[in-house]
């Protein structure tokens, strides 16, 4: 059973706002595979803090605008 995560993200929206940046583009810029970007976007994988900050840097926004954490642990907001 996969542990539920309380982390959600706005990567899809942020990519859309950056002229539809592709998942491959983002993957290359943060140094992961395209499949990992897909997994992160869908909430199937929580990246390390290092990768999370790299994603925020690509979009030039604070970390909280990329990732959010729900008030109750383990439940999606």
């Amino acid at each position, binding site marked *: 059973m*996969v*542990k539920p*995560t309380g982390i959600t993200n706005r990567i899809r929206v942020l990519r859309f706002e950056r002229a539809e940046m592709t998942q491959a583009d983002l993957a290359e810029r943060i*140094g*992961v*595979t*395209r*499949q*990992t970007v*897909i*997994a992160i976007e*869908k*909430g*199937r*994988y*929580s*990246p*390390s803090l290092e*990768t999370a900050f790299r994603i925020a840097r690509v979009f030039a926004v604070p970390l909280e605008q990329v990732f959010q954490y729900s008030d109750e642990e383990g439940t999606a907001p």
Partner: protein
Amino acid sequence: MSKLFYMGVGVDVAFQEKRAWIMGAVAILGYAVYLAVVLARSGGGVPLAEVAYIAPLLWTVGGAIAVSIALNIAVAIASPGEADAKDQRDKEIARLGDYTGQSFLVIAAVAALALAMAEADYFWISNAIYLGFVLSAVLGSAVKLAAYRRGFQSW
């Protein structure tokens, strides 16, 4: 289930996930061939423990390694851009799969130890260890594939 069996539209498979498929499939196939040969040899009323198992064992292990290398090369040629790409998630999933698969190696070692102490035939000792290697590879691959398909949290 659809996620696990690639029935979704636009399925995207990471290079290391393809390698996990190859490892699991080749391990099962190699062992199936070995079992078929050994069981066929004991078909004529020869007791299992007296079957000449060493050559089939070595050939199926060697064959599995060769097929696995060939398939890995074929997959790399099919998608050269992603060949051998491995990131943080791949490494974490690989670690989880190997760690889980290792349990069968320990079980096989304990079984072999018990068989040796009981002075069982070499056939059973060898086969306990071989089965342990196969199950370890199969379980490790299954855990990796589940982690790739259904999601994986490292915390």
